[in-house]
């Protein structure tokens, strides 16, 4: 029979050993994991801007096509600019701003800085990419929305999700769904913010959402569709002061 002292010793030594192994492995692999997360973020931005890249050349394509990364505050002032590999103004690199933190702070009434990516698309036109993040049915959903230089017309989007239902909510990250956003407007004729709504039953059949401000929802993926609709609105509306300042120039 084993004594209690033996059992305690056994358990303690085992746990310390396992902890040591796991910590060292985590430390060794951390740089690779960070790199993967960066590449994923870059790929998402590039995909919204309509630039093609895979994991191997994403960083390179991004560096070639980025004009500047802007960090703007909620009143629409540009606080920091990062370009040509260095900070030209301010102290924050927009790329390092976590949209999740931004949205949490806004929900709590804080005044975080918002990231905005000013890029050159494949056809040499300029695009503004806005990262968005919200809630789906099972977990977070996120994405990027690329606007034309008129700050109104959507020229590309990319969405992704943590674990929406395959075949239903998960369809929001397919090209078929995303391509619906092309040419939609985030401002109405008089320049007021009107988000793009994801409409159940199809935007063409809807009496209260105009065609240029709506896309069709996914059948069977209503909660994800609604979450996406709310995400687009909640995130884009923070950029409205900035957009209106720029348009007034």
């Amino acid at each position: 029979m084993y004594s209690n002292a033996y059992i305690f010793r056994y358990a303690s030594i085992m746990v310390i050993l396992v902890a040591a192994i796991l910590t060292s492995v985590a430390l060794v692999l951390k740089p690779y994991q960070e790199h993967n997360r960066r590449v994923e973020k870059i790929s998402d931005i590039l995909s919204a801007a309509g630039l093609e890249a895979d994991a191997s050349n994403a960083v390179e394509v991004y560096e070639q096509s980025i004009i500047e990364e802007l960090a703007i505050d909620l009143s629409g002032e540009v606080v920091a600019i990062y370009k040509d590999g260095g900070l030209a103004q301010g102290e924050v690199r927009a790329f390092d701003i976590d949209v999740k933190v931004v949205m949490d702070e806004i929900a709590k009434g804080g005044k975080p800085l918002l990231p905005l990516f000013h890029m050159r698309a494949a056809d040499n036109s300029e695009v503004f990419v806005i990262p968005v993040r919200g809630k789906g049915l099972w977990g977070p959903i996120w994405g990027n929305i690329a606007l034309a230089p008129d700050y109104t017309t959507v020229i590309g989007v990319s969405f992704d999700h943590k674990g929406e239902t395959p075949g239903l909510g998960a369809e929001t990250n397919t090209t078929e769904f995303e391509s619906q956003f092309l040419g939609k407007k985030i401002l109405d004729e008089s320049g007021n913010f009107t988000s793009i709504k994801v409409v159940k039953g199809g935007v063409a059949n809807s009496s209260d959402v105009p065609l240029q401000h709506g896309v069709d929802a996914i059948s069977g993926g209503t909660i994800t569709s609604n979450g996406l609709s709310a995400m687009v609105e909640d995130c884009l509306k923070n950029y409205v002061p900035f957009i209106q300042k720029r348009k007034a120039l």
Partner: protein
Amino acid sequence: MSADTPKKEALFSAKNRRLLFNPLNKENPITVQVLGICSALAVTVKLEPAVVMAISVTLVTAFSNLSISLLRNTIPPRIRIIVQLVVIAMLVILVDEVLKAFYYDVSKQLSVFVGLIITNCIIMGRLEAFAMGNKPWPSFLDGIGNGVGYGWILIVVGLFREFFGSGTIWNFPVMEKLGVYNFGYKDNGLMILPPMALILVGVIIWIQRARNRELIEENK
């Protein structure tokens, strides 16, 4: 070495071969023991995650069996389940970290199911039933056998679900290349949903029992 040491057993003796190959068929953890079904439904939408899951589970069963077998004479029986879980959890976290570092896309697809390998009944079942009472080498083989037995079912199910559900095999658009979409063929959306995995596992069990009558339970 004392004189009465039993003759050293060959590495792949008939007994060891049985440990390795029986779980592939008549002692299969999924189709005969019906263990590990949950993850089998979740990760078989496509072939690639199914293969990665199969490899991960095989590594975890093999090495947890090996470690527990090495420790078996020191483990106090009163905390043996905890010891087993710590070993399994450690191996699973290692697998998860490595996937995140080198197979990021696949790791994202597998999401929580890598972590849930910890709760896979096959692994603890083998530790309790086999590794606690057997030498390291047979335990290791038993782990490999059970992992592969679990894995091949996953891969077969994944193959069919991806082919009929998405029209691709290993993300290669087979159906599109065959041109069947031009004749009005549509991918079967039901294949993507978990119930279809259960039905496919059922079909595999059916075929297996039709071929091997020993597995059929007597009607009482």
